[in-house]
Structure formats: structure tokens, C-alpha cells
């Protein structure tokens, strides 16, 4: 059974290779092949899952060693897989949601002449993401880590004839590279500390080294997680990444890739457990991002960007939970899984809306779509209820636990973190209600597109609605299913460990407080957008609104400091290289040339003057010889 692990990665990789190298012959069948191979990967995952369930809780780790990858003296990197409960959870989420989104894309990308290539990239992404969660050492994880970055780059820039898409793709890759720097430094630190970077030995020996080292490794891992999971301060790329086709936003920039940072932190739990400072940094990052993303999400009129802000914020919750230590790891992952369902569902719903509205993304130009797109409305609505944490739906179970865990941190910290998480829940309710109301309720505010075609909203084809329905099903029931008898906790505990926390207030109080905040958020949003007509062009808004629309000026800061500064730096360096470094050499050459020009004048071509110098020279030689003799 263990030998099947490689197949998980190999199937989509084969798909990518065939689809990208196959040429136009495959245009007709390419999308079916891609979907089939993603499905194959999911099927293998299910088989392995069944096998794993049949074993004892302590005996569930499966490994597969393929070959030694980079053997150099003490540096041994293997191509080997490590499948435990944590990886298994991810495998099922990735291949499952991945397969659904492949299906959805068949309809969504129907009119795109480069559909075959799109499926090739999607398959490439699946392979890289599965490699990321299956790797048995950090270096192999790094391969998957950059692999998903590449796939994300290719897919964000899929419509690369649009300069904005190409720029967004480049930005995403570059910001991620900054995070990758963190990961590579972390791996180097592990190598010098432990002499290896395989999960088993590193995590097993984490308590044998000093706290300082662990803190350094932890902070570098956190930097990596910030890049990949769009956490402050490396969050700026996610909003722009919405330039990619919507299925990409759903799969990569909502359900799977952006959660890789959370996986990394939870996987490295042993390191963070020994480094309280790194944990503190992690919770701060999480708390700041969950508020940041939520505030940005409130102001965006572009439906995908609003959802992107929400993604950022929800991942902030997960990072916060992961930073809390063993008390939070399980709930971070649980929220990650439920978020995978409802956020993917929301994005697919957004894609369905755009599909029906001539690719319009501005929510102010939607309105009253519930009658025209009933399936989309219902599935999107269920996703909406799930994300705001409506009691009984998935988000409720997972988010509530995180808020409780934050309070349980204890002391002032606990109150601050818990308060932030609670506030975040309220803002979430506000902006999601806003999205919902602007899109599906209220007046029709439809505008003709640039070519003058008025939109005729219609329900999307079956291939698109079926995945939406399935995801909505997950958004509704996953949380409850996981929580019955603490099933999810029991499943993951052997890997991540778990400690009970003692919140300063009872769990019931926390839940009730959450409900109150939630209801307030919904009510405010309804009052602002549901009861009043919504202008088609956005009003100027308060200072905060304007700041939030511009991503709280973070991009402007980047632009002024990094982009402009960098441009000036490179330009001045080009100048220095040309005038100074090259100038010194050319100057030497010029002075030698000048000197020889002078010397050349002595060679005037008259035999007499040569004769004079000959005689002169001889005379001097003779005189010198005589003089030496005399002395």
C-alpha cells in the first residue's frame, strides 16, 4: 500500500507533462485527461485513507523512499515521502477540491483557446502541492513550495496578454521569493544545527538544542509562511493574484496553496513549541493579518478582491491558532479544511456570477441576481453562512474553537488575541453580508460592458454547478461531522499533540459573545447596503475606506520604497559600473595610449635622428663603462 504514495504525485505530474508537451493534438481531449488524472490522484488518496483508518492510531505513518536525491558528504537529501494523518488530511483536501475545480474549469474555460495549457498548469499545481505535503524532509518540501509558486505564477499570468495579469504574476512570485529566502535560511540553520533536515530527526531532536537556535529557525519558517500564506508584511500579492482565472483563485489562492504556510508551521510544531518568542511573533502576525484582511475586505468593490481579503483574514485565524501551540494546531487545520470547502465554494460562486455577467467583477454593478442564478445563490449563500460562523455550519465549529483557544492563552495576551479574533468575526460578518447583499439582493444595477453588450445573467452549465453543490455540502456539514465526538481532534492528535486550555471565561460565554458580534456585523451591513440604494460608482468614502481600498497603503509603500528605490539603485549602479569600474580600466588604457603617443614622436622617420640616438647611446655606454673601470 505504501508504494502507492508516489502515485499521488506522479498522476498529476504525468498529466502536466503530457498536456504541456503534447501540442495542439490534445486540444480536444486535454481537459478530460487532466481531470481524470486529478481524479485518479484523489482515488489513490482515498484508498490510502481507507488503509490508514484500518490501522492503529500509533501505526499510521506510511513512508516511501524512492532514491537518494542529493548525496554530498554530510548533506543527504532523499526523495522520500512521509504520509501521516496531517499529510493525509491535506492530500484529501487538495486532490478532492482539486478534482472538483478541474471539473468546474471544463465549463468555465470552455471558450478559451488555451484550455489545454490551463489544465496542464492545474495538474502541475496539484503535483507540486501534493509533493509539498508529502515530502519527508524540508528540502523536498521546498521543491513543492517553489513548485506551487511556479504554478501560481503561470496561472495568475494565464491571460498574459493583459499587462496587469503579467505584472500580478511577477509580483506574486517575487514576494513569495522573499518568503522562500526565509525557508532556505531555515533549512540551512537546521543543517548546521542538526546535521540533517528530514522531519523525523529534526523534530525529534528539537529539544536538544538551544532556544535561541529554535527561535531563529522558527522566525525564518514564519517568514516563509508569511510569503506563501499572504500574511502581513508579505500579503500584498494576494489581491493582485485575483487577475488569474477564477478557478485558480478558488483552488490556489483560497483552498490550498495559500494554506501551505499553516501546514509548515503545524508540521514544525516541535520547533515552535521550544521557541516561545517565535510563537509570539506568529500569533501577532496572525492577529494583525486577520484584522488587516477583514478591513481590506470591507472596502473592496471587486468581488474577487473582497473574497481575497477574506482569505487573508481567515488564514490569519489559522496562523493565530498555529501560533498558540499544541492547543491550537488541530483547530488551525480544522479551520483550514472547512475554509477550503466554503472559500472554494464562494470563489466558484463568484466565478459563476462573473460568467453570467460578461466577466464583470464590480459588485456595485450586480444586484438582484438571486432569481436569475438560483443554484449559485443557494450555494454561495451556504458558503456565506459557513464563513461568518452561523451556528451549525462548518465555520462555526472551527472558528469558535480558535477564538476559545486565543482566550485560553491567558493573561493580557489572551484578552488581546481573543478580542482581536472576536472583532475579526464581527468584521467578517459585515463584509460577507455586504458581498451577499450587493450581489444577490437589492436593485438591478447592471451595466453594459465595454462592447455595449447588456448582461443577461443565466445559470452556469452543469459542469460548473455540480462542484459548487458538492462544496456547499462540505461547507454545511464538514464542521459538524468533524466535531462529533471530537473526531478530528482524535485523528490529528497523534501527530500534532494537544493540550487542553483553560479560558478565563466559559466556552459558552465565548460562543455567545461571538454570536452577538456576528449579529451586529450582519445588522450593520444590512442597514448600510440592504436598506439603502447602492450607488453604481463608489462614493469617495471616509479616510479609512479609502485607505482600505488601497490595501492600507501597503502597496504604495512598497512602490515608493522598494520599486522606486530599487530602480534608482540599479540605475545608479549601471552608471557606476560604466564610469567608475570600467572607467578605471579605460582610464589606464587611455593614459598608456597617451604616453605612447608622446613616445611615437621620437620616431620621426629621419635616418639621421636614429643615427644620433645610436651614437648617443653608444657614447653613453662607453662613457659609463670607462667610468665604472675608473671607479
Amino acid at each position, binding site marked *: 500500500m505504501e508504494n502507492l504514495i508516489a502515485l499521488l504525485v506522479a498522476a498529476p505530474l504525468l498529466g502536466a507533462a503530457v498536456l504541456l508537451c503534447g501540442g495542439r493534438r490534445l486540444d480536444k481531449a486535454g481537459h478530460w485527461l487532466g481531470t481524470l488524472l486529478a481524479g485518479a490522484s484523489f482515488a489513490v488518496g482515498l484508498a490510502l485513507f481507507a488503509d490508514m483508518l484500518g490501522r492503529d492510531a500509533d501505526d499510521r505513518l506510511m513512508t516511501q523512499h524512492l532514491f537518494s536525491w542529493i548525496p554530498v558528504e554530510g548533506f543527504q537529501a532523499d526523495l522520500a515521502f512521509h504520509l501521516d494523518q496531517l499529510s493525509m488530511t491535506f492530500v484529501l483536501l487538495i486532490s478532492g477540491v482539486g478534482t472538483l475545480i478541474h471539473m468546474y474549469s471544463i465549463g468555465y474555460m470552455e471558450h478559451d483557446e488555451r484550455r489545454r495549457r490551463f489544465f496542464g498548469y492545474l495538474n502541475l499545481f496539484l503535483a507540486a502541492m501534493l509533493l509539498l505535503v508529502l515530502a519527508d524532509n524540508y528540502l523536498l518540501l521546498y521543491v513543492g513550495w517553489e513548485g506551487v509558486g511556479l504554478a501560481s505564477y503561470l496561472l495568475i499570468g494565464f491571460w498574459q496578454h493583459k499587462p496587469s495579469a503579467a505584472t500580478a504574476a511577477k509580483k506574486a512570485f517575487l514576494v513569495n521569493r522573499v518568503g522562500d529566502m526565509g525557508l532556505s535560511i531555515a533549512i540551512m540553520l537546521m543543517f548546521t544545527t542538526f546535521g540533517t533536515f528530514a522531519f523525523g530527526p529534526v523534530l525529534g531532536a528539537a529539544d536538544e538544542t538551544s532556544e535561541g537556535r529554535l527561535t531563529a529557525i522558527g522566525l525564518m519558517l514564519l517568514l516563509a509562511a508569511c510569503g506563501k500564506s499572504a500574511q502581513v508584511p508579505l500579503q500584498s500579492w494576494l489581491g493582485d493574484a485575483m487577475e488569474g482565472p477564477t478557478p485558480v483563485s478558488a483552488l490556489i489562492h483560497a483552498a490550498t496553496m495559500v494554506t501551505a504556510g499553516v501546514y509548515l508551521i503545524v508540521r514544525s510544531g516541535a520547533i515552535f513549541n521550544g521557541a516561545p518568542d517565535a510563537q509570539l511573533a506568529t500569533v501577532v502576525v496572525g492577529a494583525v493579518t486577520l484584522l488587516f484582511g477583514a478591513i481590506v475586505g470591507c472596502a473592496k468593490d471587486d468581488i474577487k478582491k473582497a473574497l481575497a481579503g477574506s482569505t487573508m483574514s481567515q488564514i490569519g485565524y489559522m496562523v493565530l491558532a498555529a501560533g498558540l501551540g499544541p492547543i491550537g494546531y488541530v483547530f488551525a487545520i480544522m479551520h483550514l479544511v472547512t475554509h477550503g470547502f466554503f472559500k472554494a465554494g464562494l470563489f466558484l460562486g463568484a466565478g459563476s456570477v462573473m460568467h453570467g455577467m460578461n466577466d464583470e467583477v464590480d459588485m456595485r454593478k450586480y444586484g438582484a441576481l438571486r432569481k436569475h442564478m438560483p443554484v449559485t445563490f443557494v450555494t454561495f449563500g451556504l458558503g456565506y453562512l459557513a464563513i461568518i460562523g452561523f451556528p451549525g455550519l462548518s465555520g462555526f465549529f472551527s472558528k469558535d474553537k480558535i477564538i476559545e483557544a486565543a482566550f485560553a492563552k491567558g493573561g493580557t495576551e489572551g484578552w488581546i488575541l481573543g478580542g482581536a479574533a472576536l472583532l475579526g468575526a464581527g468584521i467578517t460578518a459585515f463584509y460577507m453580508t455586504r458581498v451577499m447583499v450587493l450581489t444577490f439582493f437589492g436593485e438591478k444595477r447592471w451595466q453594459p460592458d465595454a462592447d455595449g453588450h447588456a448582461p443577461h445573467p443565466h445559470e452556469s452549465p452543469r459542469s460548473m454547478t455540480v462542484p459548487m453543490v458538492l462544496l456547499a455540502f462540505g461547507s454545511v456539514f464538514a464542521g459538524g461531522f468533524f466535531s462529533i465526538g471530537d473526531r478530528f481532534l482524535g485523528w490529528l492528535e497523534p501527530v500534532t499533540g494537544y493540550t487542553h486550555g483553560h479560558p478565563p471565561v466559559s466556552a459558552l460565554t465565548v460562543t455567545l459573545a461571538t454570536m452577538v458580534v456576528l449579529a451586529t456585523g450582519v445588522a450593520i451591513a444590512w442597514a448600510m447596503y440592504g436598506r439603502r440604494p447602492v450607488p453604481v460608482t463608489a462614493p469617495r468614502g471616509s479616510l479609512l475606506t479609502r485607505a482600505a481600498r488601497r490595501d492600507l497603503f501597503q502597496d504604495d509603500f512598497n512602490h515608493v520604497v522598494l520599486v522606486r528605490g530599487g530602480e534608482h539603485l540599479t540605475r545608479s549602479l549601471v552608471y557606476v559600473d560604466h564610469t567608475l569600474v570600467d572607467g578605471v580600466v579605460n582610464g589606464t588604457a587611455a593614459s598608456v595610449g597617451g604616453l605612447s603617443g608622446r613616445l611615437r614622436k621620437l620616431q*620621426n*622617420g*629621419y635616418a*639621421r635622428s636614429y643615427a644620433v640616438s645610436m651614437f648617443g647611446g653608444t657614447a653613453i655606454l662607453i662613457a659609463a663603462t670607462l667610468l665604472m673601470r675608473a671607479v
Partner: protein
Amino acid sequence: MNPVNYLYLAALLFTIGASGVLIRRNAIVLFMCVELMLNACNLALVAFSRMHGNLDGQIIAFFTMVVAAAEVVVGLAIIVSLFRTRHSASVDDASLMKL
């Protein structure tokens, strides 16, 4: 007679020849001055040969004479052809190879 006197004479002749080469521009005169220098050397060689009681110097003097004769033939031929083409025997006019 003291053989050293011959050396003084040789030095004097050589100096006259050398000055002629340096100062004069007419190719024929230049040529004669070169011959004068050569013969000064011959004189010195013969004088040394006498001083050291050794025939080597005299032998070399014969060689020099032969070489000088050959040189005269080649040199005069060049000067004549130069004069024919450029109607001048001045060495400064023969500056075709100068930059």
C-alpha cells in the same frame, strides 16, 4: 713609432665619419662618411694586431674590406636608382615609409 698614435688617427677618422653621417644630407657624402668610419675601424684593427703581435686583427680587416666592397656595390646601386626616380640625392627626401 708608437702604435698608439695610429689609434688616435683611427679615432679621429671615425669621428669625422660619424659627424658626416649625422650632419650631411647628400646620400653620396653620407656614403663616403660611412666608408670613412669603416676604414677607421680597419686602421684600428691593424694597429691592435700590431700591438698584440697577433694576426687576427689583420684578417678581420680583410673581411671588412670585402664586406665594404660589397656594400659599396649595393649602396651605390640604391643611390643611383633613388636619384633616377626622385631626381635628388638627399636622404630626407626619401621618406616614403615615414608615417
